[in-house]
């Protein structure tokens, strides 16, 4: 048997060993990340200028830019956000506040949790099958306007919307679940209907949590490459989607939603394209890739920062 002192000393030693191990591993992880970041910046930072942001891709690395890529990313995100946010929030509200607990809702719940873990390329394949091939089978011959779903911004946006829908639903449900039950009872006791409780109380009180989830979901979507490559996003786009009500070369006016069916590329695809090109010292695409990578990371970091700020502010404001 050990003396009390020995036992204490042994416990302290183990504590110390574990904390040293933890710190070392944390430093290792952060260090690798820092090296990658520094490397990326050293290579690409000098390449970022106004010209880089406002020119189309080119065969000459020094003349190439990411204009079509970031516009494409922004427009695809717009479609993704406009579809995934209302659908996801509505589904979350339904499952949390309306749906009765039975085997059917449990089944839906398990599936949503699983969907959040499905590899993104699977979503790409699904979109390719559903939105491109099947859509053409069903609607292709009937109307020209819908037949144009094809390899377009709307297809890309919807594909990423499928991808982030589970994340938005889960975030919405968690935000709703964080509202204590006595808040709901207070509103119901005054004679509010279910919808009035949702609209006047639950949604306003959970806006912080929902927007945090939505921003994190969008920042994941903006970095996705695989599903968009699968549906056939192009890697070389030297034009912008038509602006609403602009005129084509033949003088025809373009409809307000024509940009939706335009071919597109996005930042990560542009980056991938540059990485996979042979680079030489006088035509160095790797530098472009690094520069595009910095931009992409800045966007993602900014989005995540906004999410963290919102979360912190909500936490400070609402304590139940």
């Amino acid at each position: 048997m050990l003396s009390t002192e020995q036992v204490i000393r042994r416990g302290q030693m183990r504590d110390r060993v574990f904390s040293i191990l933890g710190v070392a591993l944390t430093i290792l992880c952060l260090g690798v990340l820092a090296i990658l970041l520094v490397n990326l910046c050293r290579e690409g930072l000098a390449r970022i200028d106004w010209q880089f942001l406002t020119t189309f891709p080119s065969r000459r690395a020094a003349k190439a830019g990411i204009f079509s890529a970031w516009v494409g990313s922004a427009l695809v995100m717009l479609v993704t956000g406009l579809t995934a946010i209302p659908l996801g929030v509505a589904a979350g509200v339904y499952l949390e506040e309306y749906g009765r607990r039975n085997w059917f809702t449990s089944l839906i719940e398990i599936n949503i949790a699983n969907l959040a873990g499905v590899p993104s390329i699977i979503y790409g394949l699904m979109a390719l099958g559903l939105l491109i091939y099947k859509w053409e089978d069903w609607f292709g011959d009937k109307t020209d306007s819908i037949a144009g779903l094809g390899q377009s911004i709307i297809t890309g946006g919807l594909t990423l919307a499928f991808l982030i829908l589970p994340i938005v639903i889960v975030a919405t449900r968690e935000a709703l679940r964080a509202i204590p039950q006595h808040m709901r009872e207070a509103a119901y006791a005054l004679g509010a209907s279910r919808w009035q409780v949702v609209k006047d109380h639950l949604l306003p009180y959970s806006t912080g949590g929902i927007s945090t989830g939505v921003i994190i979901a969008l920042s994941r979507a903006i970095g996705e490459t695989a599903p968009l490559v699968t549906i056939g996003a192009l890697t070389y786009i030297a034009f912008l989607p038509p602006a609403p009500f602009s005129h084509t070369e033949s003088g025809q006016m373009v409809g307000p939603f024509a940009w939706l069916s335009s071919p597109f590329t996005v930042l990560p695809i542009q980056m991938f394209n540059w990485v996979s090109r042979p680079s030489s010292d006088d035509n160095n695409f790797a530098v472009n890739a690094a520069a595009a990578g910095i931009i992409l990371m800045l966007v993602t970091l900014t989005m995540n920062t906004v999410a963290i700020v919102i979360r912190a502010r909500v936490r400070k404001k609402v304590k139940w």
Partner: protein
Amino acid sequence: MPDTQIDTRPLKAEVKNFSFFYGSFQAVKNVSAPFREKAVTAIIGPSGCGKTTLLRCFNRMHDLYPGNRYAGEMILHSRSPDGSVRPLNIVHPSTSPIEMRMRISMVFQKPNPFPKSIFENVAYGLRLRGVGSRSELSGRVETALRGAALWDEVKDRLPQNAYGLSGGQQQRLCIARALAVEPEMVLFDEPTSALDPIATSKIEELIDDLRERVTILIVTHNMQQAARVSDYTAFMYLGELVEYDRTAKVFQNPGKPLTEQYISGRFG
């Protein structure tokens, strides 16, 4: 009030052979009791005796959760603006729970104001009833806050968040919120159990003032409180109504040994 005096107040509500089930568990067993208009009736009893469960039947709060079932009758003698009285079975399937909650307000155990402004908290029930004009809202919010003895403390900070108020003030705000809609009955579910003694005595004074205006049902753990504020007392045990009588009678000369034991603190 001496025991012999006949209460001339009309009945506001009546419970007849009323039972309530959480799934297969019967939480309220075959209870019958009258509730006089503009009287304060206290429901007392040890934890788990079904008193809160019974109270929450009056505004159909149990409808919010699946698997709950009412049996028997719970009648509200509802008064129309023209003075005519119409009996309404609160727990009948065809009775809308929303209508009952419009007629019968509730004050909860823990103060639960909305994380909105003080004004909006009181105005919300009125907005639900379609009161839109700013001047009418302000007038009725002020009346309700005065009625809840809170006006002087909050009149200069109506636009501020209700979470800035103290616990006792929050509870009085919840009372104002319940009164603003001019209910026929107000249910109090242990309204002072989360408050300190000073805040508690303020709430009790308030209940005393309110009895002239509205029928009150109060569930309480605190027997002194029941003795202080109520005209009638119902003692419940294991889901059954053991004794129901005038408060003075129940506390001074209880009819059942079980009531006597509970009141003298021998169990519960």
